[in-house]
């Protein structure tokens, strides 16, 4: 069956094992191995899909040096004193993969935080099984998704630690790779072809996952890729240039299929927005609502997804009612509570619309979290004061519909419109995306960090218990980068 290897076919072998590589800061399932397994099996290849991130996360959960181990993999902190622990962890993951006797190993890197683990895993795999072909892919093979640099893949290839890599959507490319067609766009190349019809692919197959490993049993679903908006800070729209979506029927069919297979009714949408195509979105809400109507509460479907704010006439009250009936949880992409800042970044909705969404979600008891970027390029000190007051004035929503406010420090990401228009915005960029200064406003990165900290304090009433620490490790590392530079 497999044509990419010259070795004779051993029927006891698995054609390809797909692996989600640690370290990703999540206790939720990672979808790519399950999706790619389903895709290649449809074409007749034998496959295993493993989320080894969760096994790694569970393995270090109670480790006394957990933080050091994570820092080693996430931030490349040197830890010779941890070499035994790190060695054992890499061996564990390597053994798990090799136990399936694969002809090809496909390593999926969700974020760049997996690069260091991948490096040492590759060293190990090529030591003990040099005959096995290794291919890597996923958005984490690049430092930033829209970056034009391919440094990690180039380096791994030059060291002969990988045989091939796939950039961009992998569903078609990985099948072409297994067929031996290395010329397909995206294979060993930065130029790739976006998938146009997401309904063409089989539903992810989580047969090799153990859902007991996860804190909350949730199944990820991709209902769309790309975005309908053109926000200037966003690198997702630079990666997926065209918004593509699945039909509501297809998404709902996947939900029913996964409920049937795994008895899990909780779904998390892996997308940039759930309400990109309003027609399909409302249809999906109806389908779920109708399903839920006939079920006991614990048997009902529930879901969470990103959600863009629109004007009131585009999001009539019935939608919030439908979201309530479908047990939806929304991550609301507000980004800034300053209208001129939002308009300048390409988000053209009014502050009245934000308030309308807060009122509606409160009225219909739809849990939401607010996604806010702090200290944007055109944001003034006066805007900082306004933002702080805005949050103080809306404490009635804290813990009552708004269960979290995600505050992230604004960065100028490679490949984005902000980066392209840096001269127009009079931005002076530093070595890292979080280091920049608007030469007109003269607000330093350190000042923005101080502002972020202040806002974190103000937003404490909004944060539920688990987010009281206030920020992800990524955010902490951004802050430490800024503070070190200053």
């Amino acid at each position, binding site marked *: 069956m497999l044509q990419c290897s010259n070795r004779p076919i051993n029927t006891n072998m698995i054609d390809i094992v797909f692996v989600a590589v640690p370290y990703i800061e999540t206790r939720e399932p990672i979808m790519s191995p399950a999706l790619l397994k389903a895709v290649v099996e449809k074409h007749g290849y034998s496959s295993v899909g493993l989320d080894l991130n969760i096994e790694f996360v569970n393995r270090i959960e109670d480790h006394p040096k957990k933080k050091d181990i994570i820092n080693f993999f996430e931030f*490349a902190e040197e830890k*010779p004193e941890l070499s035994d622990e790190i*060695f054992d962890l890499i061996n564990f993951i390597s053994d798990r993969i090799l136990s399936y006797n694969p002809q090809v190993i496909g390593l999926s890197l969700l974020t760049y935080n997996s690069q260091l683990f991948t*490096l040492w895993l590759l060293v190990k795999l*090529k*030591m003990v099984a040099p005959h096995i072909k290794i291919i890597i892919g996923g958005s984490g093979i690049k*430092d930033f998704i829209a970056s034009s640099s391919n*440094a990690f893949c180039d380096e791994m290839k030059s060291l002969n630690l990988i045989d091939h890599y796939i950039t961009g959507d992998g569903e078609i490319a990985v099948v072409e790779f297994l067929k031996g067609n290395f010329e397909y766009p995206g294979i060993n190349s930065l130029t790739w072809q976006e998938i146009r019809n997401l309904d063409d692919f089989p539903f992810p197959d989580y047969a090799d996952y153990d859902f007991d490993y996860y804190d909350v049993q949730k199944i990820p679903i991709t209902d769309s890729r790309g975005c309908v908006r053109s926000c200037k800070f966003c690198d997702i729209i630079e990666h997926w240039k065209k918004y593509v979506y699945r039909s509501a029927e297809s998404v709902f069919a996947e939900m029913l299929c996964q409920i049937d297979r795994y008895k899990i009714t909780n779904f998390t949408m892996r997308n940039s927005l759930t309400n990109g195509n309003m027609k399909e979105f409302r249809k999906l809400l109806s389908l779920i609502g109708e399903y839920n109507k006939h079920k006991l509460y614990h048997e009902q479907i529930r879901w969470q997804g990103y959600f863009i704010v629109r004007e009131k006439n585009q999001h009539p009250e019935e939608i919030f009612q439908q979201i309530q009936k479908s047990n939806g949880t929304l991550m609301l992409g507000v980004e800034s509570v300053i209208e001129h800042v939002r308009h300048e970044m390409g988000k053209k909705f009014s502050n009245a619309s934000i308030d309308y969404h807060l009122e509606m979600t409160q009225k219909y008891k739809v849990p939401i979290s607010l996604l806010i970027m702090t200290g944007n390029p055109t944001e003034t000190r006066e805007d900082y004061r306004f933002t702080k007051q805005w949050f103080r004035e809306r404490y009635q929503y804290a813990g009552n519909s708004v269960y979290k406010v995600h505050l992230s420090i604004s960065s100028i990401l490679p490949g984005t419109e902000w980066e392209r228009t840096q001269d127009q915005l009079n931005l002076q960029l530093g070595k890292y995306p979080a280091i920049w200064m608007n030469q007109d406003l003269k607000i330093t990165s350190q000042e923005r960090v101080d502002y972020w900290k202040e806002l974190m304090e103000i937003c404490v009433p909004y944060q539920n218990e688990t987010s009281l620490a206030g920020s992800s490790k990524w955010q902490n590392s951004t802050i430490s980068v800024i503070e070190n530079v200053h």
Partner: protein
Amino acid sequence: MTELKLVFKCGECNGYMSLECYSNDTLIFDTEIKNSDLTVTALVDFPFDLKIKVSGKNPNTDTLVEDGKIVKDKYIELKQIYLARYPVNVSVLHRLCQFIPDSKPIEPTTFFYCNGQALLKFQSSDALKWHLMYNKYYDLRQKDNLC
């Protein structure tokens, strides 16, 4: 067995020096050098001591000096070591490589300018373990740290 790759740069002056490499006193490589770039690969068992013997240089005739400057020299320089395909960081390599010139005191250098032998100790049970313990990892986002 672990793949060991050594990359040398060789200076020519009345021919090249000779090179022999030993793993725990077992000869793993010897050659007559024919050009300035030399890469050798061998399989080794961990732990091991790598010994690199260089010979064939006549100090009186194999270094050409003009106006106080060396214009041509017979030498061998160890540029890089790869263990299990991964490079040993240059700064680590420089600390690791102890050169023992014939009839001169030991010096930590990878530049073998006279006859002698270099000793590099790789005392771990496994190449990966050695990397984790002793090698300097490079931040993949900061390529200047890579050798």
